[in-house]
């Protein structure tokens, strides 16, 4: 559709009103990293969460690990083993409370600072052919990509300014392919793209006042994060695997539910 419109414009040069509307809709600027660095010190940001540009790298790793993977490093191994027999992609914890040793706290509202690449740049950095969503929900637009080289993971962020949709893909075998969820979480087996997938609503959230970090700019500073599972938190997670790749759709907000996420997954090419 977009390409058709662009092609029409290049032929006529003088755009029609409809083409001007399309052009206007394409102007979707977003703040750069300097804005997010500045706003990281805003009074409504938790004062203890401080980071400097030197910490950007571990922060990116942490963000991706925490948001997209939440690997079972903070669950009990025996529980993981049992869980893996029952579920393929999600591993329930013993309770809805947990903690994790992390180089840095969850970045909260700073997430958008990591999705700085265009699709083209992401494709080059990934080194393998990336799939993309071809049918986005209304008003959602691509708003940046991130590549995490250590996981060979590519994450695309789509946003409508209110809700976020994050599509992640990575080759299997680099990390353990399951994700920790709270004991009360419900794992819903679903059919996605002709294979078995799993759907979970809810998220691990930081316990208020639990996160601490030493005021140091040394990368890798460890901190204890207290987490609790919030099953009512408007975040949905759909995971599946196909052709040697692990895929995940993560959506925040209340407008996109399970059925829509499966439809979105079906449109991935």
């Amino acid at each position: 559709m977009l390409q058709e419109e662009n092609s029409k414009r290049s032929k006529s040069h003088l755009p029609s009103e409809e083409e001007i509307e399309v052009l206007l809709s394409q102007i979707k600027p977003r703040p750069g990293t300097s804005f997010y660095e500045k706003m990281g010190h805003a009074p409504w940001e938790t004062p203890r969460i401080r980071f400097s540009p030197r910490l950007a790298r571990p922060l990116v790793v942490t963000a991706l690990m925490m948001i997209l993977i939440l690997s079972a490093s903070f669950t009990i191994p025996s529980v993981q083993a049992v869980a893996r027999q029952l579920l393929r992609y999600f591993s329930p914890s013993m309770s809805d409370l947990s903690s994790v040793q992390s180089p840095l706290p969850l970045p909260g509202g700073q997430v958008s600072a990591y999705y700085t690449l265009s699709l083209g740049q992401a494709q080059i950095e990934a080194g393998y052919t990336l799939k993309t969503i071809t049918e986005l929900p209304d008003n959602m637009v691509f708003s940046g990509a991130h590549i995490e080289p250590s996981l060979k993971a590519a994450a695309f962020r789509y946003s409508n300014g209110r809700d976020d949709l994050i599509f992640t893909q990575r080759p299997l075998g680099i990390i353990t392919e399951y994700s920790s969820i709270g004991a009360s979480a419900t794992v819903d087996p679903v059919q996605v793209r002709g294979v078995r997938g799993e759907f979970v609503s809810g998220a691990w959230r930081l316990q208020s006042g639990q996160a601490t970090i030493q005021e140091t700019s040394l990368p890798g500073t460890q901190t204890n994060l207290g987490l609790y599972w919030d099953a009512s938190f408007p975040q949905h997670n759909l995971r599946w695997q196909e052709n040697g790749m692990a895929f995940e759709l993560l959506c925040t907000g209340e407008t996109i539910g399970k059925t829509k996420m499966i439809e979105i997954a079906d449109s991935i090419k």
Partner: protein
Amino acid sequence: MKGQNKSLQDVDTFRRLYERAHIIVYRYIYGSLGGPVQEVEDLTAETFMRAWKARNRFEGDEDAAIGWLIKIAHNLVIDNYRRKQTHGVDEELEETQLYAQQAGPEERLLIREQVRILQWLLHNLTPEQHEIIVLRYMLDWPVNRIAEHVGMLENTVSVSLRRILQRLRDNWPDRY
């Protein structure tokens, strides 16, 4: 979550509002000013700082809070304009600021050029017309929400939008 904002005095509620609204405010200011990016970022930050300071006086749901932020941003843009008495188009429109990244290099170049012309034309609109265009296309607000925000009838907004588009088309430079 929508429509259920607690008082903005609560830090978590304000932070959540910031997380959800900062791109909206940024796009509104960018659309109103046309750049430069640094100025847009500064005014976006200032919008939230003012909202933070005045949060005790605000009551309403999330949509109302976003409308309130847009009004603060609008006032800042006006102040900024009065102070400088000039406005221009950002010459460094970055590719990442356009949702056209799927297009080929030649098409992207064309789109960039057309967007530059469009931004120049937008600055020849009246402030009211400019605002309607920014709210409709850059923020994707429906007509009824724009009407409520600017205090017009829905039909008036719809007619204005058609007229503005006509005007943009009529004023499009022939040589391009």
